[in-house]
């Protein structure tokens, strides 16, 4: 569904991705793990077309979504193809109500029956959002913001959701909840590309995992397989082997 082919990205003089390649098959959960600065977020931003907007350059390589090259497409056009990013730090709109934030996710959709079905679906997944739908986004707690960011992505009717550190700053109980939700969204047919510091949890729900180091992929395999890999256990799960 998504193919990243030999991608090179740099910011000023700093190489963020060098020869990054990755394939995300349709209907799967793919997890990227790696240390800070390994290029996980850059990979998602490159797919979303954001690199030029944050002062970077795509030097080489291609991003292909559903057999169509999207490497240099503007951000909003990539989103409209159904490639939706849930950015790191949630980035919900603090001055918009919860409901308006969800409307922003489905900005171009007409408010028809299907739209309201999706809205009910989001409220079903996150009853807290329904209770607070008139409240401003900025008044929500960290966990509620993450739910809103995911709900907003669902409202876009995405084919592929890319999540950047969804568990960051959440309590252990909420982390479990978020990973359950990710699995639930995936089981409804949406492909997921997940970037996580919390390698253990993220790999355990992944069909496929990839380990990034200094801007390139160094290891790839089934999620559970990587969890067994000594190098992964040592580097990312903090275990002595």
């Amino acid at each position, binding site marked *: 569904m998504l193919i990243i082919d030999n991608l090179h990205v740099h910011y000023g003089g700093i190489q963020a991705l060098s020869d990054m390649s990755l394939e995300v098959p349709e209907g799967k959960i793919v997890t990227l793990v790696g240390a800070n600065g390994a290029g996980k977020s850059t990979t998602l931003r490159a797919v979303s077309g954001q690199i030029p*907007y*944050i002062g970077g350059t795509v030097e080489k390589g291609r991003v292909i979504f559903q057999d169509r090259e999207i490497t240099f497409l503007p951000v909003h056009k990539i989103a409209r193809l159904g490639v939706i990013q849930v950015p790191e730090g949630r*980035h919900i709109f603090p001055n918009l109500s919860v409901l308006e934030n969800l409307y*922003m996710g489905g*900005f171009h959709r007409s408010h028809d029956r299907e739209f309201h079905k999706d809205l009910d679906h989001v409220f079903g997944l996150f009853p807290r959002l329904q209770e607070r739908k008139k409240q401003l986004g900025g008044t929500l707690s960290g966990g509620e913001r993450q739910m809103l960011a995911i709900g907003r992505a669902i409202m876009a009717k995405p084919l592929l959701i890319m999540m950047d550190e969804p568990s960051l700053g959440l309590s252990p109980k909420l982390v479990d909840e978020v990973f359950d939700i990710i699995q639930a969204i995936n089981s409804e047919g949406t492909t997921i590309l997940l970037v996580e510091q919390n390698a253990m949890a993220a790999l355990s729900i992944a069909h496929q995992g990839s380990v990034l180091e200094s801007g390139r992929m160094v290891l790839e395999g089934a999620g559970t397989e990587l969890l067994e890999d000594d190098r992964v256990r040592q580097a990312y799960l903090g275990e002595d082997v």
Partner: protein
Amino acid sequence: MTFQLFLQQLINGLGLGSLYGLIAIGYTMVYGILRLINFAHGDVMMMSTYFAFFGVSIFALPWWVAALLAMILTGLLGISIDQGAYRPLRRASRISALITAIGVSFFLENAALVVFGSRPRAFYRPEMFRAIWHFGDISLLSLTGYTILITLCLLVIVYFIVYKTRMGMAMRAVSKDMHTVPLMGIDLNRVVAFTFGLGSVIAAVGGILWAMKYPQIEPLMGIIPGLKAFVAAVLGGIGNVFGAVLGGFILGITEILLVAFWPELSGYRDAFAFLLLILVLIFRPTGIMGEDLPE
């Protein structure tokens, strides 16, 4: 000074303040989403008066048709300025865009001098705006009354657009988090263009009413109203449309009262406006209705 006279001056001030407010709305909306002070805004307002002037004098259109056409043309001018001058600088530093805005301002003023000539032209004041309304001892030029009414109506319309429409929702989202909006599949450029268009149309209304009040137009006429509308926008809290109109009212009323109470100070009325700007920037830089920005 009697109470009647005070009330009279208050209404005159409200009339003048409405004009500042109408121009200030465009300043404040553009600042709200791009963090750019569009210093060409006063000159855009000047251009609107020439559009209306030519509509009436050359094409012999009824004044209201000329005014509507001028509003549309001014809206298009605002959008063209953004697309031509500011859009290429979207990723540049803010100071580059600010300097460019000053450049666009000079360009419009000088282009108008060359094309329209420096000779002031008499602007047409329609019949319906010439009547005098009497309320007890207070008399009021109908133009002033209409100006206040039109300003309040436009404020309601702008409120409706910003808070009740999809485009308004996108504008509010851009004002807080410009980089996340495109991730929603929204073309940022269209939101910005819409904002420039709307602000310019409202400035055209202000410009045409201004030209009916002081019925003479010339290429540099936009400078002082533009600067004062900027003061009004800052006073009210830049980024806030209600603040812009409120700031306009306060500026207009204090200016008129200053002149009414101390006629000998009337030569300083412009200086007073800028003194007010300095005081606001020192003591409450976020203005009356502005929120405290984290930066």
